C-alpha cells in the first residue's frame, strides 16, 4: 500500500481562521468549529547534543494550563513522536520534571524508546509555550468524526517570549487516513492557509533564535591545507575552547555525566594540540598555557573516574554470582560520597578566577592569531605531527612485552589518544573514506587499551574503598565479599584486554595499518 505523505500542519495568515477555512471541507467532510478552547503548557525537550532530533524524534511535555492545585502536574503527559508521525504517550509523573534522565521514567514503551535514543544524556527543555487549543471535528455524511482539526494559538514563554503564528493541525483518526488526506488537500487550498514549513517545535525554536541541531558541544572545524599552520592551529584551538565553554554550565549544574566528559575531551585535545603543534604558535604562547590546561584537566579527572564507575555500577551489581546485588550498596554509597566531595572541588575550580582568566586570556590570545601569515602550511604541519605521533605510538607499543608493567600500556594509550586527536583535528584536510579506514585499527587498539586502563583504575578504587570500609568497620562482611567478587570480575576483564593487546597492536603496526595512516598525509609532504 502506498503511503502518501501529505502535510497535515498549516499556518494561518491571521490570528484566527477566516470563515472560508472552516468551509474548506467538501460535501461529506464537514468541519464543525465552535468547540471549547483549552489551555495547555508545553515544553519540548531534547538532549544538549540533540540526540532525539538526530533520531527523528520529538518529545513534548504537555500539562493542563491551569495549575491543578497541590500535586501540581496532574494530567501531564509526555508525547514522543517519530518521523512517521506515530506517537508513544506516557504519563509524565513526578520523575518527568525537566531536566530528567530517560532512565528515571517508569518502565514502559516510552522509557524504552527514549532511553535508546537519549542514552545517559539528560532531557532538557529547549522551548516552552502556552497554547490555546480549539478542536473542530471533521464529520462525514454519517456524522462520524473522521479527523480532528486543532487550532493552535501559542505563545513562546521560554527561553524568550514571542507570539507564534496560529496553526491548524489535522489529527487523523485510526482507520480514517484517506479522509485526513482529503481534508489536508482541501485546507491547503483555503484562503489565508499555508502549509507549515516546520513543526510546532521547530517554529518555537526559530522564534527563540535557534534551530534543531545547532549545538553539539563538540569541536568541528573546516581547514584548508594551504592556510598558514599558525592560523589553522588557532582555529582548532578556538573551536576546542568553544566546546569546552559550552559544556561548563551543564557541568556546573550536573545535568548529566556527558557535559563533564565533553569538557574533558576538549581540554585533553587542547593539550595534545599544544604539545604537537605549539611550535607553530608565537614563541612562548604554548608554554604559558600548557600548565594551566594541565591544571584544568586534572581538576576534572576525579569526578569523571567516579562517573565511569557509577555508570557501570548496575552492570557490575547485576554480574555478581555469589553475592547479592544489594550487598554492594555500601560500596556504591562510598562512591557517591567521593563523587560529591570531588564535585565540590570541581565546581570551586570552574567558578574560580583562575579558570575565568584562563578562558578569557586564551580566547584573546587565539583571536590575535586569526590573521597569522608565513611559516609552514597547515597541511605540512598536520603531516609532520601525525607522522611524529604515529612513530611514537609504534615505538612505545613495540617495546611492550608480556612482562611489561601496566604503566607502559598507559603511556601507549596516551600516545594513541594524541595520534587520534591529531587525526581528528585535521580531519577536514583528509579524504573522509580514507580517514575512516585509517582510524579503524587505531580505534580497536584504543578500545583494548581503554578497557585495560579502566579496569586498572577500578581495581585501585575497589581496593582503596575496601580498605576504608574495613578500617572504620562500617560495612558488613557481605559488602566486602561482594566487592571481592566484583574485583575478580574486573580483573578477569583486565586480563582479557591484556590478552587481546598483542593482536590489536599487531594490526595497528602491520604494514597495511601503517600504510593507511601514512596515506592520509602523503599528499601534503
Amino acid at each position: 500500500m502506498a503511503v502518501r505523505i501529505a502535510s497535515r500542519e498549516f499556518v494561518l495568515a491571521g490570528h484566527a481562521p477566516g470563515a472560508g477555512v472552516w468551509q474548506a471541507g467538501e460535501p461529506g467532510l464537514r468541519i464543525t468549529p465552535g468547540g471549547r478552547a483549552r489551555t495547555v503548557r508545553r515544553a519540548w525537550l531534547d538532549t544538549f547534543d540533540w540526540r532525539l532530533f538526530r533520531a527523528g524524534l520529538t518529545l513534548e511535555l504537555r500539562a493542563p494550563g491551569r495549575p491543578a492545585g497541590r500535586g501540581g502536574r496532574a494530567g501531564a503527559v509526555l508525547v514522543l513522536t517519530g518521523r512517521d508521525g506515530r506517537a508513544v504517550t506516557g504519563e509524565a509523573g513526578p520523575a518527568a520534571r525537566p531536566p530528567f534522565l530517560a532512565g528515571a521514567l517508569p518502565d514502559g514503551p516510552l522509557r524504552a524508546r527514549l532511553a535508546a535514543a537519549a542514552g545517559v544524556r539528560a532531557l532538557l527543555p529547549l522551548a516552552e509555550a502556552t497554547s490555546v487549543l480549539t478542536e473542530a471535528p471533521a464529520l462525514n455524511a454519517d456524522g462520524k468524526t473522521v479527523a480532528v482539526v486543532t487550532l493552535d494559538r501559542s505563545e513562546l514563554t521560554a527561553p524568550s517570549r514571542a507570539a507564534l503564528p496560529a496553526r491548524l493541525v489535522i489529527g487523523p483518526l485510526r482507520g480514517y487516513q484517506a479522509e485526513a488526506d482529503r481534508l489536508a488537500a482541501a485546507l491547503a487550498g483555503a484562503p489565508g492557509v499555508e502549509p507549515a514549513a516546520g513543526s510546532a517545535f521547530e517554529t518555537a525554536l526559530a522564534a527563540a533564535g535557534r534551530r534543531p541541531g545547532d549545538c553539539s558541544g563538540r569541536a568541528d572545524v573546516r581547514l584548508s591545507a594551504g592556510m598558514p599552520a599558525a592560523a589553522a592551529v588557532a582555529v582548532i584551538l578556538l573551536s576546542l575552547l568553544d566546546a569546552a565553554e559550552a559544556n561548563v554550565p551543564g557541568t556546573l549544574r550536573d545535568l548529566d555525566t556527558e557535559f563533564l566528559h565533553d569538557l574533558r575531551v576538549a581540554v585533553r585535545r587542547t593539550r595534545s594540540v599544544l604539545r604537537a603543534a605549539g611550535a607553530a604558535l608565537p614563541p612562548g604562547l604554548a608554554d604559558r598555557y600548557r600548565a594551566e590546561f594541565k591544571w584544568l584537566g586534572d581538576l576534572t579527572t576525579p569526578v569523571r573516574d567516579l562517573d565511569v564507575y557509577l555508570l557501570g555500577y548496575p552492570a557490575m551489581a547485576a554480574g555478581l554470582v555469589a553475592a547479592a546485588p544489594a550487598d554492594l550498596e555500601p560500596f556504591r554509597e562510598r562512591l557517591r560520597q567521593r563523587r560529591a566531595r570531588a564535585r565540590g572541588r570541581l565546581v570551586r575550580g570552574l567558578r574560580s578566577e583562575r579558570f575565568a582568566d584562563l578562558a578569557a586570556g586564551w580566547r584573546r590570545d587565539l583571536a590575535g592569531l586569526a590573521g597569522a601569515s608565513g611559516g609552514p602550511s597547515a597541511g605540512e604541519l598536520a603531516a609532520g605531527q601525525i607522522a611524529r605521533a604515529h612513530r611514537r605510538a609504534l615505538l612505545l607499543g613495540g617495546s611492550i612485552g608480556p612482562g611489561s608493567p601496566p604503566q607502559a600500556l598507559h603511556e601507549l594509550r596516551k600516545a594513541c589518544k594524541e595520534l587520534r586527536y591529531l587525526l581528528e583535528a585535521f580531519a577536514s584536510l583528509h579524504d573522509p573514506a580514507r580517514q575512516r579506514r585509517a582510524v579503524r585499527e587505531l580505534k580497536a587498539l584504543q578500545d583494548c587499551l581503554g578497557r585495560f586502563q579502566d579496569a586498572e583504575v577500578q581495581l585501585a578504587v575497589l581496593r582503596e574503598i575496601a580498605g576504608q570500609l574495613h578500617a572504620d568497620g562500617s560495612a558488613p562482611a557481605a559488602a566486602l565479599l561482594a566487592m571481592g567478587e566484583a574485583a575478580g570480575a574486573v580483573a578477569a576483564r583486565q586480563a582479557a584486554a591484556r590478552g587481546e593487546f598483542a593482536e590489536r597492536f599487531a594490526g595497528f603496526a602491520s604494514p597495511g595499518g601503517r600504510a593507511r595512516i601514512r596515506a592520509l598525509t602523503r599528499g601534503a609532504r
Partner: protein
Amino acid sequence: MKVLAAYAIKGGVGKTAAAVSLACLAAGDGMRVLLWDLDPQSAATFMFRVRPKVKGGGRALVAGRLPARDAIKATDFPGLDLLPADFTYRNLDLHLDGQAKPATRLRAVLRPLRPEYDLVVLDCPPGISLLSENVLRAADLLLVPVIPATLSVRTLDQLAGFIAGLGGRHPQLLSFWSMVDRRKLLHRQITAGPPEGHGDGMASTAIPALSAIERMFAERRPVTAAAPRGQAARCYQGLWREAQARLGLRPAEAGASGLSPGPAGRRSSPR
C-alpha cells in the same frame, strides 16, 4: 488485556446497550478499549456511525489474513476503538469451523492486540454456536442481561450448564437484571432477589427500562455521552464498577466512593 463479553442466548435483551455503555465508561476511565461488534446486525457499529464493513469479511479476520489491527476504526470517544461488524459475520460459524483449533480462533485473533488495549468488549449475537464457544474461550467475564421473565431465567440455567460443560478455560459469569419496569408487579417479584442458584453471579445493579436507553439507538449516541449524569448512565456506571471488580481491575467493594481513574485520568467528553 481483559476481555469482557456481552452475551446471552436470548435476543433483544440489552446486550448491545450494555456493551456500548460499558465500553464508553471504561474509555472514560482512561483505559484503552476496543469494542468488537460480532453481530452481523451491526447495531453497535451503527451506533458509532461507522460503516459495517471489514475488508475480506469475517473469513479474512478469523483466517488471520486480515490482522485485526488493520480493520480497527477510531470512534468519536478518545480511548475507544471499534472493530466493526460485517454482514459476512452471519457465516462466522462456517469460517471458524474451517480453521485449525476452531474454538480458540477468536482468542488468537485478539492476541496480537494485547499491547494496544487494556480492555476488549465483545458484543455478541444471540444464540449458542461455535462463535459462542469462541467467545467463552476468549472472555474473562461474561456479562449476561436477564429480563425479569420466567423464560429468561431458565435460559440463564441453560447458559450456566453450557459453561460448566466446557471444562478448561472459561469465564466468570456476571448476569444482571435488564429492562426492569418497577411498575410491573411481576418484575418487582422476580427481581426481589437473585434467581435461584445464581446468587453469586448476579450483579447488584439492575438496569431499568428507560426511554433514554431506547433512544440511543435512534440517536446514534451512547447514553453515557448523551446524558452522562442521567439515571441510565449512573446505572451502567454501577454495573461497570461491578464488572471491574470481577475482572480484578478494582477492589470489590460495592458503593465505594472513590472512583478510580485509569492510567491516563478521566476522559468522558467525546472528541
